[in-house]
């Protein structure tokens, strides 16, 4: 008997279930083995779970992010994906990855720590905002209303995680020389810098004063993507498969599974901020 045949026999019931399950909403091997990657890429699983969560009302879901530090390789794909997704200008970053070298040769290693916004439940940043420009939206994501923000940077000072940076109005390519007919030139090249869909809105960000220039900016769990059923940019691009995103109110979701394990921590717990970003160590 071939290996496949043996396997079939061994798990006949599962396969049978797979065959008879109605196609609508069918899930391929819904029960993951001990390794979340076993049956499908976790990205696909999370994508499916995201769709499930979106069927609920916003207040019923609880978005969390889980970062497995054992799997993070410090590649910064997440950092750059976030920059690219949100067209973050020079000096603005939502998700840096800290690298630390530990030990003495030859007993030496490196540690990597990606840091999105913690989306704190008790968020010091929102409390200090004088004009309610930064607040918890109906899904409890901490957002910044660029049109409301006066740019006082109090939230930046208050965030214990350094998760906020200020938009000083820089561009990566725009200032570079123009020379029609010889080179592409700064302004032509920089078209992409003006495409940002943050918060589901278009931000051309032209000029020296147009929001989000002059505002404090931060990670928003890519809610403009989530609403369309796309996982956050840092999550889909995580080549280490170290970043997980989902609804912690869904008992069957990957993130729920992960945060209910003992090897989970949150940063600066002592401050009582109650982050929604968990780390597996």
């Amino acid at each position, binding site marked *: 008997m071939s290996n496949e045949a043996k396997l079939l026999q061994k798990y006949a019931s599962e396969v049978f279930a797979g065959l008879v399950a109605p*196609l609508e909403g*069918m899930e391929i091997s819904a029960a993951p083995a001990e390794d979340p990657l*076993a049956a499908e*890429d976790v990205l696909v699983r999370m994508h*499916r779970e995201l769709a499930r969560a979106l069927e609920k009302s916003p207040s019923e879901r609880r978005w969390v992010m889980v970062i497995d530090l054992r799997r993070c390789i410090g590649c910064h794909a997440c950092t750059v994906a976030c920059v690219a997704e949100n067209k973050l200008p020079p000096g603005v970053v939502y998700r840096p990855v800290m690298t630390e070298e530990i030990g003495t040769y030859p007993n030496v290693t490196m540690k990597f720590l990606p840091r999105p916004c913690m989306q704190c439940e008790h968020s010091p940043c929102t409390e200090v905002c004088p004009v309610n420009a930064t607040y918890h939206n109906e899904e409890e994501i901490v957002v910044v209303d660029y049109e409301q923000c006066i740019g006082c940077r109090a939230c930046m000072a208050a965030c214990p995680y350094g998760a906020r940076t200020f938009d000083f109005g820089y561009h990566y390519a725009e200032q570079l020389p123009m020379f029609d007919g010889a080179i*592409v030139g700064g302004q032509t090249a920089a078209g992409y810098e003006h495409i940002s869909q943050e918060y589901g809105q278009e931000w051309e960000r032209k000029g020296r004063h147009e929001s989000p220039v002059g505002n404090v900016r931060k990670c928003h769990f890519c809610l403009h993507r989530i609403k369309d059923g796309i996982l956050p940019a840092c999550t*889909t691009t995580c080549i280490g498969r170290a970043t997980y995103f989902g609804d912690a109110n869904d008992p069957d979701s990957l993130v729920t599974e992960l945060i209910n394990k003992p090897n989970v921590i949150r940063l600066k717990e002592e401050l009582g901020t109650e982050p929604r970003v968990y780390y597996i160590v």
Partner: protein
Amino acid sequence: MTPKQKKLSRRDFLKLSALTAGTAGLLGSLPGVMRQVQRVIAANTNPSFEAQPENQLYTVCLQCNTGCGIKVKILDGIAAKIDGNPYSPWTLWPHPAYETPVKEMATVEGALCPKGQAGIQTAYDPYRIVSVLKRKPGTKRGEGQWVTIPFEQAIEEIVEGGDLFGEGHVDGLRAVRALTDPEVAAEMATKIKGIWDEKDADRKRALIEAFKSEFRPYLDALIDPEHPDLGPKNNQFMFVWGRMKGGREDVVHRFVQEAYGSINMNGHTTICQGSLYFTGKQMSSKWNAAKGSFDSGDKFYWQADTGNSEFVIYAGTNLFDSNYGPPQRVPKATDAIVNGRKFAVVDPRLSKLAARAWKWVPIKPGTDAALALGMIRWMLENERYNKAYLSIANVAAQVAAGEPNYTNATWLVKISNGVPGKHLRASELGLISKQTVQRDNEAVEVYLGQDGTEYPGDTPVALVDGVPTPINVLNADAAPVVGDLLFSGRVGDFEVKTGLQILLESAQEHTLAEWAEIAGVSENDIIVLANEFTSHGRKAAVDIHRGSSQHTNGFYNNNAWYMVNLLIGNFDYKGGTIKASTYNRKGEKPGQPFPVMTMFGEHHFTAFGIDMLRTKTTYEKSTLFDGTYPTRRPWFPIATDIYQEDIPSIGDAYPYPIKILMTYMSSLPYSVPGGQKIIEILADTHKIPLFIASDIMISETSMYADYIFPDLTYLERWEFHGSHPSVPWKVENVRQPAISIPGWPTTEVWGEEIPLSFEAVLLAVAEKLELPGFGPDGFGEGTPYIRPEDFYLKQVADIAFGEKEDGSDSVPEADEEEVRIFLAARRHLPKSVFDPDKWKAAVGNDESLWRKVIFVLNRGGRYEAFEKGYKGAKVAHPYGRLINLYQEKTATTINTMTGSPFTGYTKYIPAGLSATGEPIPHPGYDLRLITYKTMTMAKARGISNYWTLAIVPEGYLLINSQDAARLGIQDGDTVRISSASNPDGAYDLQNGKKHPIEGKAKVSEAIRPGVVAFPLGFGHWASGSTDVEIDGRVVPGDPRRAVPLMANGAMQLDPVLGNTGLSDLAGGSAVFYDSMVKVEKV
């Protein structure tokens, strides 16, 4: 040895899901899970552009050479975001079903590395040139003064030549193409082959004379009639490329060799991982049963099956920063970290991979073979190797044992003066003899054994229980031969050893302690590695890359590591050592619609002659052979595409001078060790009278060109990216135009409007010179090759058709919805790029084929189903034939710098030797310089990606704290790197300009003391980093691109050759890790 699975293991699960997915596929709906997503999105009244398939185009990344599938999201014609193509096995693991409708994939995306994410900035680089630039007449090469000229004028000038720069007459492409008659060329080529094959000197002389008289009217067209085998003057046009992939490569082949008629087209393999390819080539050289000798092997290599190995040793493989490549291999490796599979890293530097490894072995650079031989010794002496597998001596035994391949470990090798040479042939022992037999009334020559068994030719011999036995190697129905593995002694008149015996003795040249000492590791390291390696059946593998390869002894390092693999017999096994598989893009399989390589019409030109790199024939066969060694420059009988030799050979006019050089996507002075010598030659108009470059900017190479033709970036063009050895599935990645830069110039060629591009140059030259293989009948009567996609779409059609003659392997036809999405997603492309009618015409207006093409293009390539990658414990697409544990072909190949043959078995040879094999003195230069890639930088071309520069803004010199303390260097100090061959520590850019080899030191614990390392990608002196003048106007450089450090210029030059860095003469590699340098604070 086979581990029993008790629980529902991960592996079983994969199969299970694959089965289920397969079934679902049959029922016509693929991941039903996507459906749910679609519902949600349908409910979303205002989905952003990102979520809509009409704004997404699938193509292939080329930020590095990994070639990950990408999904380009387009808004108002601008590439707004790049994400992973969810169909691609590079970005999702497992990858979803290929048949999943594109619409359902609109919100699914796979993972990409940071460079892939930043690709937008490669396409939209302000410094990209949009016009042909001509060196300003009256200024020198490299002075940085340009004039823009119309494309048509540029083509006219390079084709017709003339006094182009006020420096006197320059031959154009027309003049250099002296031989234009394809028939004469073909005849000459045949005759030249005859001359080469003639061993007798006098008769050779006579053949030359005969040649001269036969082709008297054409002798003018030859480079040197006295040496007709140098070929026609056409060969004085040389085409050199850096990064080039399928498609363009096929077109270049057509253009340079078959249309223009030059033999000289060379890639960059040897600065990449050359020796790895050529180790693969020698290990795969094929037994030719009829001839009784070996034919050439394949230029390829193997890698570990990252996702299924229980234990991998990564030796000089930088998996978490580079390699082929992060999105594809990293998730499999990080899965190992959390799921109890293990890996070890052998690297002088603590790479990120090493930082996550079960064990890091900081080896002394250049000594990989010592470590591997230590392991081999331990494995052999402790009987921790797969005897049953290695004993298999032929296909028949292989089939009987159910193995996917076999080796020549048991084949006897003749030893003369202690040196292993050729395999013993059965006829030499009289075991078989040549006889003439009647067959179908015809006399045929066969070899017959003593018992009357027939052999197709002379055959090797193995001892079977001590009895010499002829091996019918390839015939599956012949007698299986399972030979004795270890033997040393006399058989008949011959002193012989088995291949394995030779390996054992080589491994026994030193004790474990001595091997450890050489490699700078501990004896325990060797034992621990070997023990672990041999504790996982065939699910262990050594994975090697540049770190073991780019040394003067690279060929042997690679070979040593491959031997470690071979001893456990893991080739073609799941979790073992595997190879790449691609759908045929050349239409070479029966039934494929377009055999593009041979669709040529009648006038196909045969390029012939000795190539500039001396790789296509041997010195001994050539008419240049005068019995003396060393040759002026080395010949490379094993390797090809010796990038580091291109320009220095031109410099020495050896074997002949070059008149026109064209470079493509290449950064020679920057990427090659000792690049300053390359600059010297590039800048010299006597050595290279005409220098044309295809580039996207004024780069380190094209800054020395006479003409720079702007090219399209990877986001705007066609190419077939192929696969990599660690990918088990059969695939082909299709790169296609995803965007067009606003206002991108076009030109008219053959009456067609096409974008300014590399293709435009070739097509326009072909039009002007009326080259065969191009134009209205380019693919034969009535089949035009007048637009770029005329070629590429045929290739897509071949891929879509698949490899079964009856078409049963072809992809489905795109349905109406997919056709709609296909058209909508390209609505932003100008007609010059995308005209559906013209595209369809390119595949012969065959509706069904066209729809299949659309199906492939909608997915950015073709990817075999996940479950088809493996068959049981083996890969589905095995290498599947003889693996040479002993390399007869290598052992019989002469090294022209020493006059002796290369060694045909795994041997430790110290690194860092000169071309003639001598140690190189380096007094006062006490640190070993190595280099590596960092995740955020790709090659010379990463510098325009400001997003990734925000992560690592400059390259620093990694130095161990012990060395730093000794030298009084502190973290952040600026240091200069110099060497015996570059004591000033600077590049001479010519015209009085210097570029210092300086950068900041990073004092660290993460590197072996005595070794310093720098990352690739920084330290530019062109590519937008410095001011240039175009049409009298200064285009200021960007200081962000002028950051340090590039230290290839400090690498050791070969003292024998003088104008090039060190090379591995067997494997061809340029050497990046064997230079001794001095590091001084400035």
